[in-house]
């Protein structure tokens, strides 16, 4: 049975979600709503490139917080989620959250009505998260500027798991769900 992406995708507000995989940053950029606070520890060498972000999210809507370690980062995230002035908070996680930390983030999000999204390394999920996604880029033989990705929902507290191939349309700023190769209209029927 195929599950509709709309049942899970605009991420449920006032909850904290998780995403892992190589395309986690793209997932976060697509999922973001309104002004975004992006919390990333200051020692990490990687940066978001605002020009690369532009097709997804206007760079003027982004605020960066650079805490020195994860403890500070979580405190900032809790404060921002609880306040609710920013509708979307992205937290880059570098060590596994324990139950207490995950629960506190979840409670803060509920209190403030903001949506939180943790970018986690694979296998560092917290039990308190509402959903956990895995986003991986995939090769698109047909289009050059493709952003074809495979999104899997691997944990869902209030719904079912599912997997979709999606592509971001840069012109219209919309997400297209792409049918798997065999089910596309006009394509040859899979063998067998």
């Amino acid at each position: 049975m195929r599950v509709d992406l709309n049942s899970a995708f605009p991420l449920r507000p006032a909850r904290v979600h998780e995403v892992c995989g190589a395309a986690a940053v793209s997932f976060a950029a697509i999922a973001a709503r309104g002004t975004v606070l992006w919390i990333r520890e200051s020692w990490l060498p990687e940066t978001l490139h605002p020009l690369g972000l532009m097709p997804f999210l206007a760079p003027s809507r982004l605020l960066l917080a650079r805490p020195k370690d994860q403890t500070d980062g979580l405190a900032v995230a809790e404060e921002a989620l609880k306040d609710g002035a920013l509708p979307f908070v992205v937290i880059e996680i570098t060590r596994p959250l324990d139950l207490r930390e995950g629960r506190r983030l979840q409670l803060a999000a509920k209190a403030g009505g903001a949506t939180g999204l943790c970018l986690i390394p694979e296998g560092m999920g917290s039990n308190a998260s509402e959903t956990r996604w895995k986003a991986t880029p995939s090769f698109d033989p047909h289009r050059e500027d493709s952003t074809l990705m495979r999104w899997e929902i691997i944990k869902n507290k209030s719904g079912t798991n599912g997997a979709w191939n999606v592509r971001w349309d840069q012109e219209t700023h919309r997400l297209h769900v792409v049918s798997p190769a065999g089910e596309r209209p006009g394509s040859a029927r899979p063998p067998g």
Partner: protein
Amino acid sequence: MWFPRLASDRVLRARPVDGPFVLTLRESNTDRLYCLNAAAERLDLARGMSLADARAFCPDLLSQPARPDLDAQFLTALRRWALRYCPWVGHEGVDGLALDVTGATHLWGGEEEMLADMQARATRAGLTLRLGIADNRGAAWAFAHFGTGQNRLEDLPVAALRLDDKTVTGLQRLGLRRIGDLTTAARAPLARRFGPALMERLDQATGLLPEPVTPEKEPPHYAVRMSLPEPIGLAEDVMGVCARLLAPLCDKLMAQETGARQLCLTLRRVDQGSQQVELHLAAPMRDPNRILPLFRRGVDAVDAGFGIDQIRLEATQVEPLAVQQIGSAQAAPDQLNDLITRIGTRIGLENIQRYLPADSHIPERAFSIAPAAFSAPQNGWSAPRPRPLRHFPPEAIAATGPRPPARFRWRRMTLTTGRAIGPERIAPEWWMSDEAWRSGLRDYWKIDTREGRRLWLFYTPQNPGWFVQGEFA
């Protein structure tokens, strides 16, 4: 009041020196003497002499560069001190003060006693002071600069009229050496020859033209203090006092149309120790109800010891903040600024940043990062070519030749090139020295791998090598 050696007195007060001492100021590539102490003046050194000449006259001369800005601050401090004699004190040039003591001398027992008191206090403070008192400002200036003993205004040289050097020389050539000579001479030829300024100065000195003393405006002082009869120790009580201090402070800020940017709460304890709580605000603010909760985190961290009996609140940095009409769309930025302030007290206000566009085709410099509290969001982003979403310092991969490799290893993954788009050649900006761009030109390729990752690789033809610098969405 004239302080003939204001600059050198200021320096020597902090560090006394025996023997000749001068301050030098650099003028058109020469160090010239700016201010001398008494010992140096006795050696016939003069203002405006070059330091090399002065050294030749006097080998053991000590010198130091002058700081005219600090001298001006010092004169402002002296102006505040002079307010003890009368309320009407203004600056007179860069090294003097003009006091309007009308109606204030009897408080000191008469003019003589007041002048003696001024002189005594200045001497005790290590300042050379020359005083002149007269019925008007011009004559007082003349007596302070040129008066010796009990002489009359008419006996002073014409330079005492605050004239420029050219006029003084011209008058001396005409044989008019004293002010008395000028007052008796015919006015019309003099005015025709030297211009109206000479007659104006003469009339100001003789009292025919009024010249009021303009008192300086006191800069507003944003600090309030409360002493408590009994020491307090609970955080709630401290916050209560803080709320009562904030109200008058914010009223004052409101009256001046300014907002506090930085606040400092000093808590003095019974044992004379003191603790400070600093608050850096993300935007100028003067609403006590919004500022008060921001102090909560700092006040909670204070150790009250045996109790706190004096609390002082000062706005250490203020910025102009015009009164705004109340509108409906005001709440959101205020709430965001409060959030930034609250986060800033934890991780530092400069660590909350935003991207601003910059004009460069070098990928690393196509944007700048500025603290969010001190910048406004800007639009005007444009990317003529696609840029990666994630961007990291270049990571070398093993490959050769100007064409992208068919297979390569990166971060312990073996990747196969499915499609290569490029090259996009970017030349270094030669007017900026950038360590990372020493290797010369870069040919950027977007590589779509069969495994899915879309990477941004570059090849350096002048210094062959392949690097991965970013990843696309």
